[in-house]
């Protein structure tokens, strides 16, 4: 297996080869049939990424096995599950893993995880994704430190009875296809395509018969009246609600108001309601702006390194940037030169006759294709400039990138080390909020950590005993919780300003009641969520959840902890 330093590249680079679904006769392959319903959600390239991913699951517990099962159902078949060795799936580092047997559970597993982390850290960094379920805090620190800088995403989760927390830990994760629910169409009415202008100018609304009039696409109608308004307003583009409404009124005045054979003029109504979304001034989305800054910073650093007069051994080995960084750099360049992003090229459906709708589609598609050609040219220059080959990025990936340009984003979290030690100000705020509103996800989260400390000291979880007197553990748990809260608040100047650092009795009691029980349906819920988050990370599609979250199956809520 190729040892690139960047896992993101691994899964995205074979988009071109053997798409899952196609065959000469166009009839679906058995695999395409099998995964038909989910292929419609993430496409052949997404499915391929899932099947090629190598996932490590640490945690032979309910949440872990449920997550595994769901990902298998989606076609992920390259798993190593640290607790179930000896199964056919354990394809990697078999020698090391054969030492562990199926009896590995609970404490014993965690000891061995410890050992493994020491003895063979390289084992862990070879995966596309690591899921750690029910792993103790001290091991997570080591694990995360290992994975974070090597950009192997980690999903961490814990379950206590009816509650479960989860957290994604990833230094950098690039979202190629966010698939927003209701994206604005990319129409460029502010600076219309020349071919589009010519097409519209050739249409004479007043000379049309009722059939043509009622089947004129709203985009043409909107453009015509927009132009009229602009002419009457010194060429400016509508910049506020009132001005957009004025355009709408103009359109309304153009309606014929007669119903013909084919019903009333729905296209004219569409034109009026499109005013709200089609006439918004275009501006660079902040997520894209962030990417520009990142790319520029990266290039600046490279420049500084190569200009540096330090001896070559001290110079950081030039790390080739990942494809997304190359593409973002190119996008920034494109934007600088053209003042806009590459055109998306698609149009929403609208009432129209066939020839005009198709003509419009073709106009936009041709313009998008031209932008893509220009973009690809710029990319080649960027690559060569940096010493990479001109075709470092596959054509299909470039096309995908441009098509989704407006929605691209980089998702990132702090390391587990930082995330699990919240800032004192954050802690103080959460404690204060709780004091007013009652128990919150933050308290549960604090208690989960306190349980971990309890476990470290006593070798079991509070309440995890057959003893009828399970509540006896509450006292110690309360102490641990207080210590932890004070720890977290330690650097705050005035610790007294914070709310109570004493966990509400109710919550202590409930946790002891659970005794770390793995309620199946709660584990299954979390397993469902985590498997999808894992797929997001593997495919680079859809936006992952980056906050620390708590699932409460009692209130059926899923809320951020901080």
């Amino acid at each position, binding site marked *: 297996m190729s040892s690139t330093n960047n896992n993101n590249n691994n899964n995205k680079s074979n988009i071109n080869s053997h798409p899952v*679904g196609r065959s000469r006769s*166009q*009839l*679906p392959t058995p695999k*395409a*049939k*099998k*995964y*038909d*319903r*989910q*292929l*419609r*959600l993430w496409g052949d390239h997404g499915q391929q990424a899932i099947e090629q991913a190598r996932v490590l699951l640490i945690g032979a517990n309910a949440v872990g*096995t449920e997550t595994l*099962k*769901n990902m298998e*159902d*989606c076609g992920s078949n390259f798993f190593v599950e640290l607790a179930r060795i000896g199964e056919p799936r354990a394809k990697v580092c078999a020698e090391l893993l054969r030492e562990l047997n199926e009896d590995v559970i609970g404490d014993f597993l965690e000891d061995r995880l410890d050992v493994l982390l020491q003895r063979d850290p390289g084992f862990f960094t070879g995966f596309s994704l690591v899921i750690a379920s029910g792993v103790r805090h001290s091991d997570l620190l080591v694990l995360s430190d290992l994975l974070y800088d090597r950009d192997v995403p980690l999903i961490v989760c814990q379950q206590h*009875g009816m509650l479960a927390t989860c957290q994604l830990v990833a230094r950098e994760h690039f979202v190629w296809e966010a698939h*927003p*629910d209701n994206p604005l169409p990319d129409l460029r009415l502010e600076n219309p395509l020349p071919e589009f202008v010519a097409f519209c100018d050739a249409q004479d609304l007043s000379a049309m018969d009722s059939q043509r009039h009622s089947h004129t696409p709203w985009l043409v109608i909107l453009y015509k009246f927009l132009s009229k308004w602009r002419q009457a307003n010194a060429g400016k583009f509508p910049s506020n609600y009132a001005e957009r409404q004025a355009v709408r009124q103009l359109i309304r005045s153009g309606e014929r108001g007669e119903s013909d054979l084919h019903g009333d003029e729905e296209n004219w109504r569409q034109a009026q309601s499109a005013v709200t979304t089609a006439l918004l001034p275009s501006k660079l989305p902040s997520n894209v702006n962030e990417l520009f800054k990142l790319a520029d910073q990266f290039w600046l650093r490279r420049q500084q390194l190569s200009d540096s007069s330090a001896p070559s051994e001290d110079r950081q080995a030039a790390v080739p940037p990942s494809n997304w960084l190359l593409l973002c750099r190119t996008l920034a360049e494109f934007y600088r030169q053209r003042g806009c992003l590459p055109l998306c090229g698609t149009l929403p459906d609208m009432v*129209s*006759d*066939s*020839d005009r709708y*198709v*003509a419009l589609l073709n106009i936009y598609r041709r313009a998008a294709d031209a932008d893509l050609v220009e973009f690809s040219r710029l990319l080649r220059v960027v690559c060569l400039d940096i010493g990479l080959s001109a075709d470092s990025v596959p054509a299909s990936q470039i096309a995908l990138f441009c098509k989704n340009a407006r929605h691209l984003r980089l998702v990132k979290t702090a390391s587990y080390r930082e995330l699990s030690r919240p800032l004192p100000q954050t802690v103080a705020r959460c404690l204060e909020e709780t004091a007013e509103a009652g128990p919150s996800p933050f308290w549960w989260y604090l208690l989960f950590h306190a349980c971990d400390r309890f476990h470290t000291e006593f070798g079991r979880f509070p*309440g995890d005993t057959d003893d009828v007197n*399970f509540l006896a553990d509450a006292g110690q748990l309360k102490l641990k919780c207080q210590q932890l809260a004070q720890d977290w608040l330690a650097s705050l100047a005035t610790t007294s300003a914070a709310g109570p650092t004493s966990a509400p*009795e109710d919550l202590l*009691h*409930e946790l002891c*009641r*659970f*005794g770390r*029980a*793995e*309620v*199946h*349906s709660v584990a*299954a*819920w979390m*397993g*469902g*969520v985590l*498997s*999808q*988050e894992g*797929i997001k990370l593997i495919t680079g599609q*859809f*936006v*992952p*959840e980056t906050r620390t*979250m708590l699932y409460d*199956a*009692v*209130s*059926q*809520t899923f809320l951020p902890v901080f």
Partner: protein
Amino acid sequence: MALHDVQSSPGTDNRWRHVRRLLERAGPLGGPEFEPDPELFSAIRSDLVQILVVGAGGLGCEMLKDLALSGFVNLHLIDMDTIDLSNLNRQFLFRPKDIGRPKAVVAAEFVERRVSGCRVTPHFGKLEDKPLEFYRQFMCIVCGLDSVQARRRLNQIVCSLVQFDESDQPIPTSVIPLIDGGTQGFQGHCRVVRAHATPCLECTADLYSSTQQGFPLCTLAHTPRLPEHCIEFARIMQWPQEWPFGEEVPVDGDDPHHVDWIRTEACKRARQFGIREPDFRLTQGVVKHIIPAVASTNAVISAQCVTEVFKAITGCYPLLNNFANFSDIEGVAVNVVPLERNPQCDVCGQPPPKPLTFNSRDSLQTVINQLKSEHGMTRPSLTACVEGRDVTLYMDLSFLRDQLADNLDKSLAELGLLSNTVLNVTDSAQSGMKPVTFVLNLEDGMET
């Protein structure tokens, strides 16, 4: 391999200790009347607690498995379909050798094999094939259906099981909690229905939007714009003209040859209009109205529903109140909404008709007297459906009183009223009052 074997080790129920913790230990966040009791666990593990799962599709099978792993041992599963080629993506449950067998039967076998001690009784058939009494035996019903009609039918069944006491309050033991789950791609919902306490599924019928793509025929015929239009034209118009696979042989979306024929015709039409040509996947998606589905959403919604089933049966925690949305397209979002009942609901909005017991020889006046003395009416007016026609029996309004006065002395038999006739009664003294329905119970009379 998806479902890990849960073997029972001799002499211990250690695998269920998680469940026992919830049932045998008290906790401050539990249900308001919850009393921990070892008997609860025994009850769950006994035949006494019967649960019905409706639907053996992706969601239903997941629910079955979750219920079994939550400790329930007496499960029933009803589904009207047999397994075909297109279901084999749920490989962990259905294998090629199962093609043609009822889904409910195969799913039941699978779960029984994997979770020892759990009994699953499959029912191959439609909801309406079962008598009402069949449903009465269940302590909870959970459904993972993909059709609005089936949901509404199930809802009617569950609501009609409810019995009322003298003060028109639903008798708690007759109210079977209905947990309804649904998924579509990365979104889903879970809701809890307790008839007459929460909205029933009919109260909010408009929530379930249809995913049918209805294109106007004139668009298909004259002004297609999209590949989908070309596909639908081939399916709706060309197919019944050419009968490519035999006279009157309908389109079978699961037959790839049928789909490919449609695709070929659609491509011809697309080329004619300059439209992008559809591929096989798009064609089949349109022909079959395929809703994209993924294992993770089914897992989430199923689990949420089963948590509610567990709560409903044990009372260990309060139930979801009462509708939860789920979406994990962007981040992960869960949103709980307490939906309200619809007082005009056709299914649960009307109070049940109250019985009025008389003799067929009794006069209408007798009925009116009883309405006044025992049902709090002052000036009742009555209409009834007699021989298929709505008849006004009496109206206590000044300008009509005399016209219908003759009816007062007539016997119920003379007026053509039989047992089970429904009377609609309003009280002129209470303006804006909704009609109250009564049903006649004639001790000696004939029935409608």
